[in-house]
């Protein structure tokens, strides 16, 4: 491809970048009382991006921009999903930010730039463009975590996130440079070619892999690189936590898929055991430590860690089924996490953050409908059928057993049983205890509607799971 046509597959990214700049500029000229326009512009930017994506749906796999950019069904699916998730995040965030005098255009602009970074990561076909996207996303997220600048906790979380994140990206870069030394290329296609010729116990490739996986594991929040995650989840304002817990997880999935699976898939024998260790540790630490948490955001942070363990197990399986399961699990997790953090936003109001588990006490008496939504989400995260989370776990377990590692599957289900306890705790306080807080829920209609749909999606995709499974399967065909 040459001339302008080589840019065509990246239309959505180009549009998103321009749109984010337009939102940033127009926000400067808006009076405080017209700030809502920024919100609508941000949503319009996402909608436009989604339309661009739909209009440039790749027919198969297209590598362009001198091998730096790839458009394939997977990138299409993940990007569209990211658009939707970010739009929902903005919607959940709007009233929350308003009620706390934090309704500033920067939240939306940073969100859009982070989305752009995620897009670049999803479509990366070279270690360099991957790194570029990673940094764009990370820098936006660091700033977003510190968004509430009067909060010492947020500042601490942002510092932690930034420093640890810098170390992780440093590791990633170091691994990349060794990989370059071994394979002589940054292009993932060429790396894949050379990797096929390497010995799987070659010391150089093992060192490169270790450093790259440290970077990936950090972004995912896999044990033992999870230290930042609980503090950031707790310290950031909930709409930012929501962003990190959902859209950023799609980016992490894209990162591991592009580098480890597409680039170094031939070396499955080298990285499978590394991933197995990360996965088992994540499931163990995540599930066990979550039991001890009283803060819901912290608990969800540890629950994220355990879910990441499952996603890594899917990748570890090393088969098409395993990769599909990992993609499916990530999408399912994003839907569930969106609803869970949405519930925290729903219950919070000016001067009151519904972050403690006790704040959900007696919710069934206050609002049977939203108690039921939370019940669905919690049982789904615990992996109880007929809810979405069960099929996600199931797909991963099936892939792991098919790969002949039945004992890892047994470990996975055992830790899920331990994990069930803390999800049940939420249901317990909602249904079996009397409310401590009797204030009626104050949330706008669109938040209620979208949150309800989000929760019902967890149930609907549980009774009819084929839709989402088919999407993930088709993306990796």
């Amino acid at each position, binding site marked *: 491809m040459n001339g302008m046509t080589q840019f065509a597959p990246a239309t959505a990214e180009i549009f998103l970048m321009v749109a984010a700049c337009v939102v940033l500029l127009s926000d400067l000229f808006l009076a405080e009382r017209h700030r809502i326009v920024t919100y609508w512009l941000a949503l319009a930017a996402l909608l436009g991006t989604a339309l661009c994506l739909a209009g440039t749906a790749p027919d198969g796999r297209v590598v362009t921009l001198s091998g730096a950019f790839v458009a394939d069904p997977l990138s299409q699916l993940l990007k569209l999903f990211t658009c939707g998730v970010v739009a929902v995040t903005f919607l959940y965030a709007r009233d929350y930010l308003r009620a706390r005098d934090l309704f500033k255009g920067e939240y939306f602009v940073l969100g859009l730039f982070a989305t752009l970074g995620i897009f670049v990561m999803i479509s990366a076909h070279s270690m360099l463009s991957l790194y570029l996207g990673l940094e764009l996303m990370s820098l936006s997220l660091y700033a977003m975590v510190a968004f509430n600048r009067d909060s010492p906790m947020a500042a601490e979380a942002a510092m932690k996130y930034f420093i640890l994140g810098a170390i992780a990206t440093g590791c990633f870069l170091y691994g990349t440079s060794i990989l370059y030394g071994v394979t002589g290329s940054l292009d993932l296609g060429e790396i894949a070619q050379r990797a096929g010729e390497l010995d799987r116990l070659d010391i150089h490739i093992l060192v490169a892999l270790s450093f790259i996986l440290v970077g990936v594991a950090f972004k995912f929040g896999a044990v033992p690189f999870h230290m930042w995650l609980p503090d950031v989840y707790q310290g950031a304002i909930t709409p930012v936590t929501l962003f990190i817990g959902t859209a950023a997880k799609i980016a992490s999935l894209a990162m591991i898929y592009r580098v480890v699976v597409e680039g170094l898939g031939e070396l499955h024998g080298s990285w499978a055991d590394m991933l197995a260790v990360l996965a088992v540790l994540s499931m163990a630490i995540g599930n066990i430590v979550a039991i001890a948490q009283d803060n819901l955001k912290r608990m969800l942070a540890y629950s994220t860690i355990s879910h990441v363990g499952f996603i890594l197990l899917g990748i570890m399986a090393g088969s098409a089924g395993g990769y599909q399961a990992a993609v499916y699990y990530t999408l399912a997790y994003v839907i569930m996490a969106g609803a869970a953090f949405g519930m925290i936003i729903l219950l919070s109001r000016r001067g009151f953050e519904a972050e403690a588990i006790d704040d959900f006490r007696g919710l069934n008496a206050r609002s049977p409908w939203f108690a039921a939504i939370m019940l669905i989400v919690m049982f789904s995260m615990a992996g*109880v059928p007929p809810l979405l989370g069960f099929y996600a776990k199931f*797909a991963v377990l099936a892939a792991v057993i098919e790969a002949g590692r039945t004992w890892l*599957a*047994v470990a996975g*289900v055992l830790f899920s*049983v331990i994990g069930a306890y803390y999800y*049940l705790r939420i249901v317990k306080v909602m*249904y*079996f205890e009397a409310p401590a807080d009797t204030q009626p829920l104050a949330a706008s209609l669109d938040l209620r509607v979208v949150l309800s749909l989000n929760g019902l999606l967890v149930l609907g995709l549980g009774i009819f799971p084929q839709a989402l499974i088919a999407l993930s399967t088709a993306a990796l065909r």
Partner: protein
Amino acid sequence: MPTNLPLLSILIWLPILGGLLVLATGDRRAPLARQLALAVAMLTLLASLPLWIRFDPTTAAMQFTERAAWIPAFDAWYHLGVDGISMPLILLTTFITVLVVIAGWQSITSRPAQYFAAFLILEGIMIGVFSAVDALLFYVFWEAMLIPMFIIIGVWGGERRVYATLKFFLYTFLGSVFMLVSLIYLRVASGSYDIPTLHAWPLGMTEQMLIFLAFLAAFAVKVPMWPVHTWLPDAHVEAPTGGSVILAAIMLKMGGYGFLRFSLPVTPDASQALDWLMISLSLIAVVYIGFVALVQNDMKKLIAYSSIAHMGFVTLGLFIAWRILDNTGAAEGIVMGLQGGMVQMISHGLISGAMFLCVGVLYDRMHSREISAYGGVANTMPWFAAFFVLFAMANAGLPGTSGFVGEFLVILASFKANFWYAALAATTLVLGAAYTLWMVKRVLYGEVANESVAALEDIGRREFFVLSILAAAVLLLGLWPAPLIDAMAVTLQALADHVVQSKL
């Protein structure tokens, strides 16, 4: 009635959708919610009757089958069907649910709509368990049961309800996940989730052993077998009356059903190799738990332990097959053991349900389950006493009641295997009579114990109705068990023929 109606789908989804409707009615319009719940339960019972009337007892194949694509990506099908094992259990479910709805009519005052909705949804899910022919579908229904039951015990239970319901959930969840792993393993090996295919699939001995143990973890907890029975007394004691009835009458049968549907036919050689384990655990349940029941002060706890002992008979009947074969060299006794187990399951469903309802009647009036709080109840509640004595006799296995048939068949089958098995199993006739009748004596007879007992009112029309229907069922099944035994004869014969064939 047209013959092409998707009867099983109706039976599953009618109560679930009806339950959602009841939920939507809301607690503020409780009377309407109650009537709606009763209407849905009655309709489901009516809809389940054709299952019995049009059931063809001459074939062991699945009947009333439905098959539709569900998750093509996993090759899992929405595949339903019933045979002689599941048909009676589905009828038991629809029958008991109606009674539970009626029994909760007045005694449930907090959140009645949610209460009735939970039971209706649970009913649909349980029917789904009994009618699933696809292993993944089975598992989905199997686990889904936990959600409404968790809520039922936790919201409407007694003082220690939170502890009891968490224990119940985690115990059963832990047991089930091992089953999930082995189902996936079977799918990888055989390429299908279709249960009849799994039955026919050859497996090596090591595989069979591991799969058998995984199934055992799931089913033994549900039955429950000693030593994983400890959740049951807690759950029973703390659950509301309706919850106890459903638990005892139907949920415990899930374990026995699982053995019949999965363990025996999928892993026959492992079942044979480990039958010493199953027989010992069953006999321990019968004898040891019988003694434990004897010393209980709490009526619900006593009935809970008696349930465990009675379920020991079920597992004994199911796993005695190979000993009979070894001892007599003939396969005739095997079916007798299986039949005994099945009849015992149905009969125990009726009797334990009735016993819990009786305790519920007393609890509604006195708010105590302690045996010592009562005494001389027969003086103030003669009608109630008559029913209670009848059900107690049935629980003790008196001939003429349904309790006798199952126990008798299992003991008879045990005699064919080994005299000592039969002798130990038969101790239940003494122990069962001892703990049940001793409780009856202390609660019903003697002088009126205190003023609250003196002030008791006899059962009302609603309670009379529920108990008399159960009494009729217990007597009918005891005097004329032939229809039930005939309906399952062919299916059980086919199962018996299948399990004695080695898969190695």
